[in-house]
């Protein structure tokens, strides 16, 4: 398996070696409460890459995503990003008192995305929330809330997606939806890094396993 992945990595690299990395991390080291989560970690994310970040609970997947997103500066090493990125964290970034539409409208405004109400509704349609646009998020199920959080990926103007457990609480159709979003994002030349326990089920995805060396 690892060799096969290496070959895929090489193939992916030759196909895109002329394209600049969307994200480059060099010699990342991070320690929490005296435990080394990762040490000397190098990572390149190029256009068209979908990387599954796996590892046992507590192996530092979320921490790595937060380091890469710039949410925490408590690590050593270098991270450089190019272009815009979207981060969908473990906590989805939805206010539960607002409706999915209100949440999405706010996301669009702070991300600087121009979107009409109709186009926002069509994005919610796309994640299977048709008919729930005006229901406060606290009345939605956990899976529906996750769908509402993922809807903002549909803006499609961020080159890089950093997703923390995008499949949590999603049913089969929901997982297929994420797969679909990722495939289309990749086809557009986007890239994604997903911390996940379940396989995304996407062909030609790359793997990065944390917590093995330790």
């Amino acid at each position, binding site marked *: 398996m690892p060799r096969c992945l290496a070959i895929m990595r090489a193939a992916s690299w030759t196909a895109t070696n002329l394209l600049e990395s969307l994200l480059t991390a060099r010699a990342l080291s991070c320690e929490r409460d005296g435990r080394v989560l990762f040490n000397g970690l190098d990572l390149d994310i190029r256009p068209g890459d979908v990387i599954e970040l796996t590892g046992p609970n507590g192996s530092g997947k979320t921490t790595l995503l937060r380091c890469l997103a710039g949410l925490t500066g408590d690590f050593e090493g270098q991270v450089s990003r190019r272009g815009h990125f979207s*981060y969908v964290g473990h*906590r989805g*970034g*939805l206010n539960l008192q607002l409706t999915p539409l209100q949440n999405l409208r706010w996301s669009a405004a*702070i991300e*600087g*995305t*121009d979107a009409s109400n109709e186009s926002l509704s069509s994005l919610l349609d*796309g994640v299977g929330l048709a008919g729930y646009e005006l229901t406060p998020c606290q009345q939605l199920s956990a899976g529906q809330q996750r769908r509402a959080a993922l809807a903002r990926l549909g803006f499609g103007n961020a080159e890089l997606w950093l997703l923390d457990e995008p499949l949590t609480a999603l049913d089969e159709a929901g997982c297929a939806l994420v797969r679909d979003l990722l495939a289309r994002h990749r086809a557009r030349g986007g890239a994604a890094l997903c911390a996940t326990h379940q396989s995304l089920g996407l062909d030609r995805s790359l793997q990065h396993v944390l917590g093995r060396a330790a």
Partner: protein
Amino acid sequence: MTQATFARAPSVGRAFTAQLQRDLTIAFRSRSELINPLMFYVMGISMFPLGVGPGAERLAEIAPGVLWVLALLSTLLSLDSLFRRDFDDGTLEQLVLNVDPLFVGVLAKVLAHWLVIGLPLTLLSPLAALMMFLPAAAVPTLVLSLLLGTPILSLLGAVGAALTVGLKRGGLLLTLIILPLYVPVLIFGAGAVTAVIDGVDAAAQLAWLAAILALTLTLTPFAAALALRVGLE
């Protein structure tokens, strides 16, 4: 699904209005949180005639201090939720990642907080003044001093709320950080009202309040933005 690719047109003004609108909508959705500090203000003041006795002169003497201290405590009561709810649901992360410069988002949140807490307190203060037998001549000054002072309370409070956002029980720490900073506002605010009762011009105290407001308005949004980045780690 229609995969529309939306145009990016980052605009500081749009981010500000969107944040303000969002926070006001949330405030009006959770009415109890909205009304609690105002209830506390009115109820707290109504305790003084009962506790001190209904003697008009004695009440009028302590009225400026009481009215101001309760405005301060009511604001303090509402501060903990300023950033905490957003921290808990992950929207604060989105704010920090997407709004550049971040102080614009902070300023929108503080303005929403003032519109929901500080402004209603100011508008309610004549009623509270009535319960405390504050001389009618001093009421305009009370309102004016609160109008200048309550934004300062929200602005300074935002720094404390941002510093304690990552802590599970930040409430007590927040009080310890913020109350000393509120002291000058209290002194000048209550001082202005007392001056009018004593028949002295209150312009000096009001000018001091305005100066503090200008200072906090220019400095605290940056400080709170910085504190939020630290608090998220």
